[in-house]
């Protein structure tokens, strides 16, 4: 993985958004029968998961 791609992934994960391609690959490999979220739905889902409160721990 080159530097720019790593930094980009790091920045996105810092705000709670994992790699979309990883997700699609995971779904194709393990759950081909289930519907796959598109990019937009994936983004909204991750936003809700990060900020919805359940793991809203931010540090002092």
């Amino acid at each position, binding site marked *: 993985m080159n530097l720019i791609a790593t930094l980009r992934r790091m920045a996105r994960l*810092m705000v709670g958004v994992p790699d979309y391609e990883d997700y699609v690959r995971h779904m194709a490999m393990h759950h081909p029968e289930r519907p796959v979220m598109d990019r937009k739905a994936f983004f909204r889902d991750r936003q809700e998961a990060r900020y919805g409160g359940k793991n809203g*721990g931010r540090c002092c």
Partner: protein
Amino acid sequence: MIRHLPWLLTGLVGAVSLGVVAVSRGETVNALWIVVAAVCCFLVAYRYYALFIARHVMKLDPSRPTPAIRRADGLDYVATDRTVLFGHHFAAIAGAGPLVGPVLAAQMGYLPGTLWIIGGVVLAGAVQDFMVLFISMRRDGRSLGELIRMEMGQMAGTIALFGAFMIMVIILAVLALIVVKALAESPWGMFTVAATVPLAMVMGAYTRWIRPGRIGEVSILGLVGLFAAIIYGQAVAQSPVWGPLFTFTPVQLCWILIGYGAVASVLPVWLLLAPRDYLSTFLKIGAIAALAIGIVIMAPPLRMPALTAFASGGGPVFSGGLFPFLFITIACGAVSGFHALIASGTTPKLIASETDAPLIGYGAMLMEAFVAIMALVGAAILDPGIYFTMNSPAALIGTDAASAAHAVTAMGFAISPETIAQTARDVGEHTIISRAGGAPTLAVAMAEIFSHVVGGPAMKAFWYHFAILFEALFILTAVDAGTRAGRFMLQDLMALAVPRLNESKSQIPGFVATALCVAAWGFFLHQGVTDPLGGVNTLWPVFGISNQMLAAIALMLATAVLFRMKRDRYAWVTLLPTAWLLVCTLSAGWLKLFSADPAVGFLAHGAKFSAALEKGEVLAPAKSLEQMERIVFNDRVDAALVAVFLAVVVSLMVFTFHTCMASRRSAVPTVNELPAHPVAA
């Protein structure tokens, strides 16, 4: 042997630098010595101590599936590249704490703080983060409360959950208080921070409807907006119409923040919280990197003495002597209990291999300690006269330049009224007197460093407000996110008492819990803002005690787990820092409760004021009988709070002791880890 040579060299450089920092007296020391000493110590500690813990204490096993492998779902559980995960974890643990604590601790000189940050992080802080990550990683990424319940019983888990909630309340109050101290009577700062709200909403709309998921784009958009707000802020502050509209007293700001917290934490997350989090996260990482580069380029001399007379107590910034109060004032940079919540949060669910854990758990905490070192350097390169002018309560030094210069010079740090007025003008503020809380002091230091590198003295005011904005931004994000997290903690606790609550679909328990949470931190914020002693003076030690107690709890859990794994002979790794934290926090808590010195003990202070109240006298800094009553009431509330923290930690000590003793009697490990290799279904 050859492979140890570079490390030996690093260790030697570190030892020499530390020696220079520690023994030089009289002549000025360059700040880079501290930076080099810290970096070398951290590298050696990582190479030897972290790997020792990984190989011998934990026996990390790369073939053992992590939660990200075992429960992979592409969403919460994702095996992540370790560099990427390091960034995620560091961004989650780095906050205002490591920036504020060291600045306050600089009143005792730069040496005690430097030594505690370096020693504390290597032996306690990083060990705690690493151990909790390890424990959670072997238990499907469960949270701290659940881990304590699993390994030490239901009761211990509930007590810890309650303790964590109280700590959250205090953290939110202290953070909000820092914002109040930074923005009060500062129309420029207030305008820029207020501008982030509509700015974040535009960004939210952009990521929601226009270009969903384009975080980079929207963050650049936001950044441009932020810089525009800082630039126009000056004109707004100077305008006779707009200036007064953005000028607020501390009490007004307190109510604005309470209202903001209540509203922001029930808004949809995409509208305000998420976009502002993008800004604050990237700005935070950028500002930390810029500060590191700036310090290296500027190589400033340290102007604060290595040790001041306040090391033995009586300091204006916080009361009490070096032991135990230094060790609770510098909380987050050296050891922070709050990290136990992060290390048992999202990170263990993302770790790809057990052998990545030292870098993430131990390494990221070393990085945080480095941030604390930079904050300490920032405070120590300022003229000590300016430092004490900014950080002493108004009750001690008055509110005008002449009285402040007189009082601070009398403390032994010569400064003229002109210098105070000139510093305020340089950074574009009306006044810099009594701006306690760390953030404004650090902002002056950052303005000093950044303007040296970019823009010269003319840019000082810009960089000062940039620094204030960057701190206020991530503190407000923390207040918002923390209120939401506190709400869920409270709902969990309420559901333990009334199980029916969890089943109801109604919104009402959520609103009630939010309101209770805001009311709780709002109460302490209001107390801090109206406290004639300045608030930070009173609340920061309470926060420090609570945060270090949570760390002690996390380390006690780690000790109990080591005993249950039958690794007793390595238990010193966690017992040593546990013992030190317990000694510090229990004695600090005890002194805060029972010290006969009214400057330190809440009860003695309350008794002094209530005795005067009965006689109808008004004692300084109070100005009326009503203020006297408030001081007495606040003292009793704070005393009760400290007593609760003491009770929590002492009861968990008892649980830990029982757990360890029970495991010693057992011949086999009793730990609740998931099996090393999943049984085929």
